């Protein structure tokens, strides 16, 4: 994609993004918000998998940390804006603490360790008193700044997509920075990166913390939007869902993460509509969404390992120039 076309496409996307909350009804807005939140987390997962070459099966843990942080602060009477700001910070700090020992692990070891972290966290949240146990925290006040209080879903939609834009901007700057280009070497060969003098361990930790920050921010917005958080809101499947979205979009691509999140969310929503038609069995919604996550994940990993966005842009580039990709 050349620069001018990219700019035009970006402007178009921005315009549509801004216009949508005004025209969507409440149920569509809910999808729109959840989509944006999922995309926010997925950008981080995609960065982690594509640039640090590591799989996190526990990204939902940082989403939960963000949500619980904001919820606890808001319930304690801290202004919502401060609570929301604390959510990504808390997630980042936990990632630094957890990641320092954990990132000594690689591949499947790290995958299981991150999954274990999420399971431990959920189990703790379900048992501790101050997190509200299995019932969780309820009655979280609306988001607001000063005297302004968010009344409708449209406000949360703008908040979400502003957050996503911020996340994408940060990621873009990280990727195009000098360390970011060095990071690219990490995903392919850690030994080669290490021998060329890149501080592999520190970079991996930074990417891990950054991806947690994004998840924490999304979690913070989520808790104000829904008004409650509970362990049940952050099942293991949610972490797997982010991996599906990242893999579908193409690892290590910012727009890929957004496209992946959009595609999967819309697909699952569409099937949900289908599944709740009269005559369908009661289990149809969950069965269809499991089946979709699973089949999409398997098919993309096996047959489109670079993801949807890189595959399509390669096809476009080929058609335009009649040249093979790369």
């Amino acid at each position: 994609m050349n620069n001018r076309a990219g700019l035009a496409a970006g402007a178009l996307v921005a315009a549509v993004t801004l216009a949508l909350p005004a025209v969507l009804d409440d149920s569509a807005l809910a999808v729109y918000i959840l989509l944006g939140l999922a995309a926010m987390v997925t950008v981080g997962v995609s960065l982690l998998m594509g640039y640090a070459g590591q799989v996190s099966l526990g990204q939902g843990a940082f989403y939960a940390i963000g949500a619980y942080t904001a919820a606890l602060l808001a319930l304690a009477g801290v202004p919502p804006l401060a609570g929301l700001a604390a959510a990504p910070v808390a997630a980042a700090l936990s990632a630094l603490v957890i990641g320092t020992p954990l990132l000594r692990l690689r591949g499947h070891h790290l995958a299981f360790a991150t999954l274990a972290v999420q399971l431990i966290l959920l189990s703790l949240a379900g048992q501790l008193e101050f997190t509200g146990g299995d019932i969780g925290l309820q009655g979280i006040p609306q988001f607001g700044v000063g005297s302004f209080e968010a009344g409708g879903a449209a406000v949360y939609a703008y908040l979400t997509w502003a957050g996503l834009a911020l996340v994408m901007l940060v990621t873009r700057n990280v990727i195009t920075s000098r360390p970011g280009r060095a990071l690219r070497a990490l995903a392919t060969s850690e030994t080669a990166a290490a021998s060329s003098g890149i501080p592999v361990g520190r970079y991996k930790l930074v990417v891990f913390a950054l991806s947690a920050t994004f998840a924490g921010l999304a979690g913070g917005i989520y808790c104000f939007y829904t008004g409650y958080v509970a362990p049940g809101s952050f099942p293991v499947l949610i972490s797997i869902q982010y991996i599906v979205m990242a893999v579908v979009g193409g690892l290590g691509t910012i727009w890929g993460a957004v496209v992946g999140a959009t595609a999967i969310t819309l697909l699952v929503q569409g099937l949900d509509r289908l599944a709740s038609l009269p005559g369908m069995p009661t289990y149809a919604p969950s069965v269809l969404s499991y089946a979709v996550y699973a089949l999409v994940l398997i098919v993309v990993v096996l047959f489109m390992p670079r993801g949807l966005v890189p595959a399509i842009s390669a096809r476009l580039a080929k058609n335009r120039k009649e040249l093979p990709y790369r």
Partner: protein
Amino acid sequence: MSAFLTYLLNGLAVGCAIALIASGLVTIHRVTGVVNFAQGTFAVVAGLCTSSLLGLGFPHGLSEVSAVLAAGVAGLLTGLAAIGRRGTTPLSSLIVTLGVGVLAYAVEIVLWGDQPRSAPGLAGSVTLAGARIQTHYLLVIGVTAATFVLLALFFGRTYLGKALTACASNPYAARVVGIDVRRMGLLAFALGGVLGGIAGVLVTPLRPISFDTDVTLIVNGFAAAVFGALTRPVIALAGALLLGVAETMAAGYGYGSHQLEVALGLMILVMIVQASRRSAISEEPA
């Protein structure tokens, strides 16, 4: 004292089930290099199959064996997805097995619903040194011991077992002598399915199984397998028994609410110690 013995034997039985899951993980990982996330799924499939077959009036024995075979088929299908395509890296294969596990959720809910199911096990109980032990626990321990002996004989004494070990030991050399490494990998997956299936069949009468029980099973199994660095079945067995006994003791003496955290924390600790030792070794020659 008798309570201690009861907890010990119950814990050993739970550990045995974990050990069977772990042995399946180890078998598959040794031959293919893939960590099979769907290993817990095989146990779930077998457990649910047994409960259905028994419910349909099939006799004990036939029901359990059929369920284990069904799990073996599930293992083979998982293998086809995970390593059937040339050039799939072990980490991609892990993600594919993750997908298979989620796909199994859909199938299991359609076939069995989303409520936990149980199956009658061996009835009755015996008194050992003043402790009352359910007979089924003894069955679990006996079957697991027999399975491990058979597994050792298979890998150590049979030509096919040695060929599987050869693939684990040096895949290139295995190809040089004409062994189809991919087919051996599929065999390992089928074997892993059978081992997971045995675990499921044994555990269903003790703890009801539902479609999402696989996460607990795989995490415990992986924790045990990690003790043996994912390659040594006997150490994995020891780790599993330790895990089972520790969890049961904790629950029995009133610390039950934190047993999962302790087990998982232990697993992470073992992995980190192993990783730092490994990197210390690999840095030496440099």
